[in-house]
């Protein structure tokens, strides 16, 4: 069984390397070991989304039963998205669960994840806090996602208001990421975020 998995990954690896998406720097995949069980994936944030200009790194683990079972994928780069956990990077995507088909490939997975960044599905959330913000205050969500893209994925959009509020909390002795999570969760309301952090 493991034999088919390695055979397939070898082939798919070549397929991705040669694909036109790689040529356009939209997706990338890298082998992390010789047994083809661990890979590093990368996807570019799609244009006209809060993720534009960011580069998102993925952890890809290939199970022994691949391709009859889907690869296990999660975001290494921290991201603010309703279907991706802001804490663990776990992804809620049907093709990575029961909608997987053995004929799908790593390329399919990476492109589907890119599509997920363009079109979130807040009704099937992985991160309840993010999903609520997305549904109740879309502008606030976009601002926060853009800020996270800047902070963790090398995105170009700097938001000085966000950075200043984070700095205020850092001055109070809060760790940077913790401060960002608290502020993001409370729609950048410094007072409520502070209250939550010190309660």
């Amino acid at each position, binding site marked *: 069984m493991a034999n*088919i998995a390695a055979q*397939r990954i070898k082939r798919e690896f070549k397929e991705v390397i040669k694909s036109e998406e790689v040529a356009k720097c939209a997706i990338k995949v890298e082998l992390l070991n010789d047994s083809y069980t661990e890979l590093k994936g990368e996807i570019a944030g799609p244009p006209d989304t809060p993720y534009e200009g960011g580069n998102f790194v993925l952890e890809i683990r290939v199970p022994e039963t691949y391709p*009859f079972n889907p690869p296990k994928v999660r975001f290494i780069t921290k991201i603010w998205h309703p279907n991706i956990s802001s804490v663990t990077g776990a992804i809620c995507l049907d093709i990575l669960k029961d909608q997987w*088909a*053995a*004929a*799908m490939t790593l390329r399919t997975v990476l492109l589907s994840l890119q599509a997920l960044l363009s079109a979130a599905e807040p009704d099937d959330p992985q991160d309840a806090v993010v999903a609520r913000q997305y549904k109740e205050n879309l502008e606030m969500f976009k601002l926060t996602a853009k800020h996270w893209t800047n902070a963790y994925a090398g995105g170009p959009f700097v938001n000085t208001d966000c950075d200043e509020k984070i700095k205020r909390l850092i001055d109070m002795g809060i760790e940077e990421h913790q401060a960002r999570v608290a502020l993001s969760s409370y729609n950048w309301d410094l007072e409520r975020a502070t209250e939550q952090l010190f309660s």
Partner: protein
Amino acid sequence: MEDTMTTSQGGESDMDYSDNEYYDYYNTNDDIDIEQLDPRKIDPEYFEFSCLLEEQVDRLLNETVETLSNNLQIPPSLAKVLLHSNQWNISELTKKFNENSTRTLIAARIEPATPPGSLLLTRYVNCSVCVTVQPLDRFYSLSCAHMFCRDCWSMHFEVQINQGISTGIACMARNCIVLAPEDFVLKHLQRPNMREKYQQFSFQDYVKSHPQLRFCPGPNCSIVVHSKEVKAKRSTCNQCKTVFCFKCGCDYHAPTECQVIKKWLTKCADDSETANYISAHTKDCPKCHICIEKNGGCNHMQCYNCKHDFCWMCLGDWKSHGSEYYECSRYRENPNIAHESVHAQAREALKKYLHYYERWENHSKSLKLEEQTLEKLRSRINQKVMSGLGTWIDWQYLFTAANLLAKCRYTLQYTYPYAYYMDTGSRKELFEYQQAQLEAEIENLSWKIERAETTDRGDLENQMDIAEKRRTTLLKDFLDV
């Protein structure tokens, strides 16, 4: 202990039915005594069912498959997929199929939504799953024409079966939802233990999708109960004796409906902490305030100190409970609640819930306590019989009474969730009136059984009769299944 008061258990006759041919049961109606009244009319809980073994279920399913296969002129394996996705309803399915066979086959995921394109047939083909080139004769496909090699199909099936999936295994192509029928799967499974596992899982799926079949929920029991009437009625397994609701498979819950009891049990689980404080085993006598422990099931308490008779539930004087002014089971809603503050409304809602929960919980405890009473009674009678005071047969009526009490109290317990979800109005008033009547007679019965040896047999039997009548009346009016 035989339950000899089985006037209302339609299933008993099935259980005694020695020949295990399930279909015969329904065909031997010709010997019914015309003098006999229709049990369906007398007994609101009457229910015809049979307990089947796995082979009998297999035969029942196969007969249905064969009939449909003949009716529609399709292979049996496809008929099985159709039936599985259409609640095994032959007549409905035949109608649908004759109206539009393509649509029916697509809806059941037997055929693809868009017909497959023409195939490019070369002598060697590349399998897109294992990425190897192999001769064409090693390739197979479902109706969607997505071809994969033999080894990939069997690997696919093995992986799915190991995850507990059987009737729901789809094609391996992207976005293709066509299901693999039984014969196709079995053709690709070589290992006997895999075939066995597959058949076991699909059997489970078939029974679960069949509204007239229900697995016995008893531990390690493989009996399947079959009934043509798909209703929330009481069924009793003839092997492990588990009693359950035929429709939902949970503990029997008349007069409450399946959905309502589910809602109630979830609520009780969610609110268990709020309700915890009431589960006390001791209360103070409302008259002399001495601490009294409840060690019997009866809610009619008598203080050992001052002999005051009172109700364990509401601490009210028992005298008012025996009369028609019995109000203990009824919850008095605040008529002006709509005008009160949100806080007051929340408090009122909690108060209302606790009223019903307390009684539900209390009767459940009483059932357990009465079981203990019965055990004690059994050993006392044993001593009597040993010392020559009558035979077991002479005392049999006491056990009959205890069993009837348990049955009545069980129903009474399940009237509380029913009442909790009822809308206020005359129907609820009638319900609560009957509930109160039933409750009063049950406590009288319990009181008499606890003092069994000093109670007159005729008096006790009279009380049994009244309690069971009240129970049947309530069920006749409110068991709406």
